């Protein structure tokens, strides 16, 4: 049974007073500073070194703080930010096409379906231009025009060209930029970094975050590190679905353990599904690969009209090309004549799922639809298509062994990004003093849906330009605090709890492997809390996930030893946190009786099947408090819209 | 000066020595080949004898000769030392060897060793009697005598084959180590390198075969 309680609303989100376009300027001018001499006495712990973590670590070290960075990878450069393909938005208006801070702000608010905090989004748009300057100064090789100046493209259906890109590897190049900035301070001994160290708990002393418990993944040793503040930059939790476009190791553990220590988890149900990914085929599938959104600019999505053709194409008796035009259903064009194949991510994803649920999947095991370039090749010629998508076609062929030149691609939506995350105020501080969350790990800027090319922007905005100011405001009070003693009882207690949980998991000694259980659990989340949700389905799923949790404690099997590199043990701990998060996601999805952005509740849709928002009752961020029981407490942070008036998205 | 000395302590610096000495030897090979062509003149060796004698009495050539010896010694020592140090960088070997790079580039130590053995024999046959011990025979006589022996000739031909294999990689490799490859001329340099590796050793080998056939 889904249960939750409503607690006191959140009234303090530290948004500065004043007009929207002055808030950040005023804040920066008035926030407290720490003198250089005092900064040397302060230590900041940064967990994760993706875009947000690496950029924050570099900047904090440059300011003079002592920084300790923990990553579970072998190198800080492997974080999943590296896989972002498309680009990064910035309100530079280099193309003179009328872009401005306001427009980027407006597009982000609207794209987020009016479920984000205006002041944060404004600030994001405001600092976006600096990110480009900073990254170029660091040597990020963005695409350029022949005149030597930066090139832009439009992305995700917005009306201006504001996306900067580096071939199809923008995330990689930006991450390497931030990583190099970080390594410069490693060389200068201002940053100490710990590869192969996974954070398993945050330590609170007198209610403030004062350190972390980490596990050395190579030796299994639990270690304690203290600091004056802790910054989590640990990414999103799409792997709750088992199959997603996230990297295999991406997990929610750091954020979830912080949640268990009191940090609110906001809008967990807001997840983004990317419509064009390679489909899962067979049980062994370990992850899903994203194919760039840009493919829908020229590709046409279809399934056969007749079930007989579906059957024949599945079994391989006929080729897709054998199906004549009149027997094809270009369903996105049919359902959304105005936008056709270019409808936003969530709309496209739902339509594709609908067709597959209706039995039109074109592959024997699992679900997929065709994405066809036949017409585009005929219309524009092979050369043009090759220039636009050649590398993507090559990548598709490398994976599937089929050439999109000869036969349509097969695609299916996949979880891709999570808008929800740890609740933070304007200062990016969680409700636990001294505990900050940046990048995808927090909930703040994307509302219920993220625009394309905005994830990189937010990660770097938080790390380079926001946190370094706001954390100073907090640390100004800490200059007299000595570095907390790691022998303090709070550290003893935290380490003991981490150890006992780990040992308990290790000793279950069941028969089911972690992956197998995760796959079963992920499928439940995907089926009932994925692209579309219903109250009934969510209630059912909640029961199923509780069973999964029970099964975990009875039947999971962790081979190997505790004191060695043990990937199964790592995965088992992460799975438990995912399962607990899954329950909260279901509760959040269940409680939000509206459809908005990536959260689509089938009961709340217009007669045309469009999401129906309920601004009267649900214009708030849902921040959940952990209670240690199956009854979390909901704290609502009301969202006020001073600048943009909420309106209905329509893509008909 | 201190900095310059340090440059050669780096792995890249030590490779510079290999490349520079190698390139010097590459140039020398052409000069030597041109001289050898005098053997084909059919004048009973007069021109060749005169040429050899003039080499001995030219001060400049004597200096170059010393450099040449130095280059060979340094090239050999540095080559072996680098080979050994390279092997030590992977104490646990692969069960399956990687063969993706060309055979010539992977086996410079093999081809180089064969060339070294050849050089020893070569010096023993010509340089030692002609220049060190002294002999009544002319240098031409020594040549004719040596190549009338089919085994000796066969050994030479084989050694030149190895020289060709060595040069095939050496030419472009030395340019790369010296940073002298250039995107605009790279194709040309590759062609020159290949032609060089084929024709220079072939020239030496043909002379040896020619003399053998003439004396047989």
């Amino acid at each position, binding site marked *: 049974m889904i249960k939750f309680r409503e607690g006191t609303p959140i009234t303090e989100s530290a948004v500065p007073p004043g007009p929207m376009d002055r808030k950040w300027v005023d804040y920066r001018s008035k926030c407290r500073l720490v003198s250089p001499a005092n900064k040397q006495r302060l230590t900041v712990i940064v967990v994760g070194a993706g875009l947000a973590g690496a950029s924050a670590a570099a900047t904090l070290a440059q300011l003079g703080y002592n920084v300790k960075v923990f990553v579970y990878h*072998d190198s800080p450069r492997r974080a999943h930010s590296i896989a972002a393909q498309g680009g990064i938005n910035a309100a530079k208006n280099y193309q003179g096409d009328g872009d401005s801070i306001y427009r980027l702000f407006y597009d982000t608010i609207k794209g987020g379906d009016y479920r984000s905090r205006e002041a944060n989004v404004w600030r994001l748009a405001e600092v976006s231009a600096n990110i480009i300057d900073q990254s170029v100064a660091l040597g990020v090789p963005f695409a350029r025009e022949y005149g030597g100046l930066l090139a832009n493209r439009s992305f995700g259906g917005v009306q201006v060209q504001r996306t900067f890109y580096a071939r199809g590897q923008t995330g990689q190049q930006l991450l390497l930029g931030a990583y190099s900035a970080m*390594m*410069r301070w490693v060389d200068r001994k201002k940053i100490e970094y710990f590869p192969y160290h996974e954070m398993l708990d945050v330590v609170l002393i007198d209610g403030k975050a004062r350190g972390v418990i980490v596990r050395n993944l190579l030796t299994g040793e639990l270690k304690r590190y203290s600091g004056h503040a802790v910054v989590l930059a640990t990414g999103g939790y799409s792997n709750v679905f088992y199959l997603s476009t996230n990297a295999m190791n991406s997990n929610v553990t750091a954020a979830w353990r912080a949640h268990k220590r009191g940090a609110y988890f906001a809008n967990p149900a807001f997840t983004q599904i990317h419509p064009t990914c390679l489909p899962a085929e067979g049980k062994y599938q370990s992850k899903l690969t994203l194919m760039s959104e840009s493919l829908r600019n020229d590709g046409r999505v279809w399934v056969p009209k007749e079930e007989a053709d579906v059957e024949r194409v599945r079994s391989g008796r006929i080729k897709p090309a054998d199906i004549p035009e009149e027997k094809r259903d270009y369903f996105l064009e049919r359902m959304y004549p105005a936008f056709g194949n270019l409808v936003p991510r969530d709309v496209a994803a739902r339509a594709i799922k609908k067709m597959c649920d209706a039995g039109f999947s074109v592959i024997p095991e699992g679900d997929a639809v065709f994405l066809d370039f036949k017409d585009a090749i005929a219309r524009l010629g092979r050369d043009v298509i090759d220039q636009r998508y050649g590398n993507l076609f090559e990548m598709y062929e490398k994976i599937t*062994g089929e050439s999109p030149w000869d036969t349509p691609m097969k695609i299916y939506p996949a979880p891709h990004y999570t808008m929800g995350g740890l609740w933070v105020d304007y200062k990016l501080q969680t409700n636990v003093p001294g505990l900050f969350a940046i990048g995808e790990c927090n909930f703040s800027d994307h509302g219920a849906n993220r625009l394309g090319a905005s994830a990189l922007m937010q990660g770097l905005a938080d790390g380079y330009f926001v946190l370094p100011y706001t954390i100073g405001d907090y640390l100004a009070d800490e200059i007299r605090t000595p570095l907390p003693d790691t022998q303090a009882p709070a550290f003893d207690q935290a380490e003991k709890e981490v150890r006992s949980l780990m040992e308990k998991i290790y000793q279950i000694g069941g028969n089911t492997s972690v992956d197998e259980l995760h796959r079963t659990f992920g499928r439940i989340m995907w089926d009932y809390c994925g692209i579309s949700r219903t109250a009934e389905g969510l209630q059912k799923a909640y029961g199923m996930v509780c069973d999964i949790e029970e099964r975990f404690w009875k039947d999971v099997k962790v081979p190997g030893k505790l004191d060695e590199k043990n990937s199964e043990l790592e995965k088992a701990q992460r799975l438990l946190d995912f399962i607990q998060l899954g329950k909260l996601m279901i509760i959040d999805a269940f409680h939000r009786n509206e459809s908005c952005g990536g959260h689509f509740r089938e009961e709340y849709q217009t007669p045309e099947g469009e999401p129906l928002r309920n601004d009267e009752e649900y214009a708030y961020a849902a921040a959940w408090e952990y209670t240690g029981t199956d009854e979390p407490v909901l704290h609502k942070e009301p969202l006020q819209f001073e600048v943009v008036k909420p309106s209905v998205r329509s893509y008909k | 000066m201190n900095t310059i000395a340090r440059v050669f302590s780096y792995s*890249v610096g030590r*490779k510079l020595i290999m490349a520079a000495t190698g390139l010097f030897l590459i140039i020398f090979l052409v000069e030597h080949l041109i001289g050898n062509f005098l053997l084909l003149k059919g004048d009973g060796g007069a021109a060749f004898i005169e040429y050899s004698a003039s080499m001995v009495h030219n001060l400049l050539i004597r200096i170059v000769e010393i450099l040449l010896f130095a280059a060979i010694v340094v090239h050999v020592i540095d080559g072996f030392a680098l080979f050994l140090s390279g092997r030590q960088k992977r104490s646990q070997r692969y069960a399956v060897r990687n063969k993706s790079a060309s055979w010539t580039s992977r086996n410079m130590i093999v081809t180089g060793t064969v060339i070294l053995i050849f050089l020893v024999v070569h010096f023993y046959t010509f340089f030692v009697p002609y220049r060190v011990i002294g002999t009544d025979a002319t240098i031409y006589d020594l040549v004719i005598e040596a190549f009338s022996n089919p085994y000796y000739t066969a050994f030479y031909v084989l050694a030149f084959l190895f020289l060709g294999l060595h040069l095939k990689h050496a030419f472009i490799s030395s340019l790369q180590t*010296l940073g002298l490859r250039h995107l605009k001329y790279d194709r040309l340099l590759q062609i020159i390198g290949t032609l060089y590796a084929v024709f220079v050793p072939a020239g030496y080998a043909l002379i040896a075969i020619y003399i053998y056939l003439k004396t047989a």
Partner: protein
Amino acid sequence: MSKTINLTLKVWRQSGPNDKGGFETYSLQNVSTRMSFLEMLDVLNQQLIAEGKRPVEFEHDCREGICGACSLVINGRPHGPNYRTTTCQLHMRHFKDGETIYIEPFRADAFPVVKDLIVDRSAFDRIMAAGGYISVNTGSPQDANNIPVPKPKADKAFDAAECIGCGACVAACPNASAMLFVAAKVSHLSLLPQGEPERERRVRRMIEAMDAEGFGHCTNTGACSIECPKAIPQEFINRLNREFLRASFITEITDD
């Protein structure tokens, strides 16, 4: 359509850095040719777990060819038999039924084995810390378009910047040299005007660090470029050598 094949795997097993290690033989039945190589190893691990044995540890993360975490030397080839492909993007359709596959870690003394197929590649990070960056503070850099970069140069810098830091170059090199990695990093930054001020210092320090980490010297075999999943070409090694010569002999005023 999907086929299945049977395989014999010879997998390097090593319980820790101090263990001697050796090959274990496993037979794997009914492997779908649609699987990726790493998914095939997942299946092997599931089999091992079910049999109560310790699964094979191997490094992997993004599984889409960009993070550089995956490694493995497959039948003597880093990242397997295909060109321009990481192990995670290698698929089983490239193997034959009944084939025996040798799976080894990236071997180099500078990449010590951590466990089974995992090696410690932190040496690359230390090389980067020695100079693989442009020293610019976060704050108010000049407007991005104040630094024009000719497109061909920017494109060339990008070709170098594509390096994913996987270490296949080291694994392929007969001397376990890290030249291609360092060459890519040095070339990326030295081709850009932003990288100009630290040009000499960077190349010297990074080569110093490379030697100190115990990587070997470069003999220009080109195996690194052939095995590099991003096919970083040899021209960057040429460029690195040129940068090194320039810094050592040509630039008059340097900091050493």
